[in-house]
């Protein structure tokens, strides 16, 4: 162990930054989070990507101890959420609200700082969030982007090991989003674990090391941006082949799905070359067509309701 502070020594060896096990939350007849399990290692920058209503915010709420799971458990660096919050181990930037309009930016940070056992200096977090220049402005007079950077400054105070951001750039203009992410990215460079929920594909792609795709409260894909792109870049190969053998085709490397429609066969695969070569050399296939899908298509395919795409 390199670090020698007491807190580090007290930390259970090998504790994951986040460990969600069988997490379930229901609201009436709706299951918002459905037996979700996820483990995040210290230092990872993870995007929690999914359409609105996928259960992202509910999951984040349970990680922060703001909502109680109906089943399953949450561990943050081996602690339960309320302890992790009390120790300043986890901090969050919430989507909206949560600010007092009649305080100034600096007063809000000072007030929040006074509630923690150990904090970074107020001026330091204002600087790192890029809002030192508007320290004396009333919160009610700040733009949406400025308020979001204020929430970020507040989250920086306890110097958390894990920073959770819930749809952090909703309602920001392009410039605001860029500045916000620049601040986050700079922060992540120092080794902080970051988990951000988003429904913007490009944000997940640009800023995360790992993307966890959720739909209906379940993880439907989990991998690096490159891996997901591979999944996304999957192509559909269509050929005319009477009497095709779907089992043999499905056994080819990288094939996700085989469908036979009359004399036509449709193969969805991550590596179209292998399939095309097989079809043209080992079978009598003709009229071969290859169509590609982009990241957007994959996202939609993985996160929308269609029987065909159920995994």
């Amino acid at each position, binding site marked *: 162990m390199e*670090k020698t*502070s*007491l*807190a580090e020594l007290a930390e259970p060896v090998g504790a994951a930054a986040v460990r969600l096990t069988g997490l379930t939350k229901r609201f009436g007849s709706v299951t918002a989070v459905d037996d979700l399990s996820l483990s995040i290692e210290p230092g990872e920058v993870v995007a929690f990507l999914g359409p609105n209503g996928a259960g992202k915010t509910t999951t984040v709420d*349970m990680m*922060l*101890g*703001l*909502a*109680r799971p109906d089943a399953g458990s949450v561990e943050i660096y081996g602690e339960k*959420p*309320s302890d992790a*919050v*009390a*120790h*300043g*181990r986890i*901090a*969050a930037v*919430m989507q*909206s*609200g*949560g*600010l*007092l*309009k*009649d*305080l100034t930016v600096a*007063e809000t940070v*000072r*007030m*929040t*700082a*006074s*509630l*923690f*056992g*150990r904090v*970074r200096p107020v001026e330091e977090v204002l600087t790192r969030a890029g809002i030192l220049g508007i320290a004396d402005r009333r919160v009610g007079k700040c733009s949406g982007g400025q308020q979001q950077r204020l929430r970020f400054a*507040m*989250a920086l105070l306890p*110097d958390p*090991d894990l920073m959770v951001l819930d749809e952090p750039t909703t309602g920001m203009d392009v410039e605001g989003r860029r500045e916000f992410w620049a601040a986050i990215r700079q922060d992540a460079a*120092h*080794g*902080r674990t970051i988990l951000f929920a988003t429904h913007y594909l490009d944000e997940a792609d640009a800023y995360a090391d790992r993307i966890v795709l959720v739909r209906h409260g379940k993880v439907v894909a989990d991998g690096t941006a490159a891996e997901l792109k591979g999944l996304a870049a999957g192509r559909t190969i269509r050929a005319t082949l009477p009497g095709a053998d779907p089992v043999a085709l499905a056994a080819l490397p990288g094939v996700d799905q085989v469908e036979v429609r009359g004399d036509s066969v449709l193969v969805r695969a991550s590596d179209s070359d292998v399939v095309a070569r097989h079809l043209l050399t080992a079978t009598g296939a003709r009229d071969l067509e290859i169509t590609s899908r982009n990241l957007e298509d994959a996202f939609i395919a993985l996160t929308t309701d269609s029987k065909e795409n159920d995994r």
Partner: protein
Amino acid sequence: MTTYVGERRTPRLGGLNPTYLGLEIRRTLRNRRTLFFILIMPAVFFLLFGLPQKGEALGNGEPVTGYIMISLAVYGAMVATTSGGAMVAVERAQGWSRQLRLTPLRPTAYISTKVLSAMTLGLAAVVVEFLVGAVSGVRMPAHVWVLAGLAAWVGSLVFAAFGLFIGYLVPAENVMQFLGPILAVLAMFGGLFVPLEVLPHAFGEIAKWTPVYGIGTIARSPLTGDTVTIAEVANVVAWTLVFGLGAARLFRRDTARV
């Protein structure tokens, strides 16, 4: 990772601290409407309704202006502590309560801060009203100033509890807009605007059961020389319990931690 200075620890006293309390009080004083209702309006009432009675005396020879001044100090203090307590409604509506749950602040420390800032406002209301009275020529024995002031202030704790109770019941930013008229009616029943003796008998009988009656009569007793009755003390204690327990119950429901 940044090198830490010291270990991760939770704050002392669950987060109760002078910086938080100070900023809370400053925030309240920034609200012009609050300032008007707790500091200016009671003072203006005194100048309008108290001063014309100058020279008049109560049965025991003490000034009528003193009676009115103490009543209005109670009124100012109750409006102050109610609005202080009711600030939880604003904070819940604005999502600040939720934000606070992302800090180590314990719910009891939060409530303590709210009560302390409400009581600070209540003290300010009493002091301002007494200053206006003194400058306008109210003359009373020193012990009357001290005892009446203390009773008005300490008694307003009932309304800090009332404000918290309503604050947890109604999460609305404009909660004081409907609490204002309610407080005025309660003050009327408490004999703060017109002595209950000059009102119909039935009115006075009902008044004895309302929450301002106890603190009103107790606060004026050093001046009137009336003995404080058990009924008056019971009134204050009972209403403090009703509002305090009500607030505690709603507050537990609101801040249940996972």
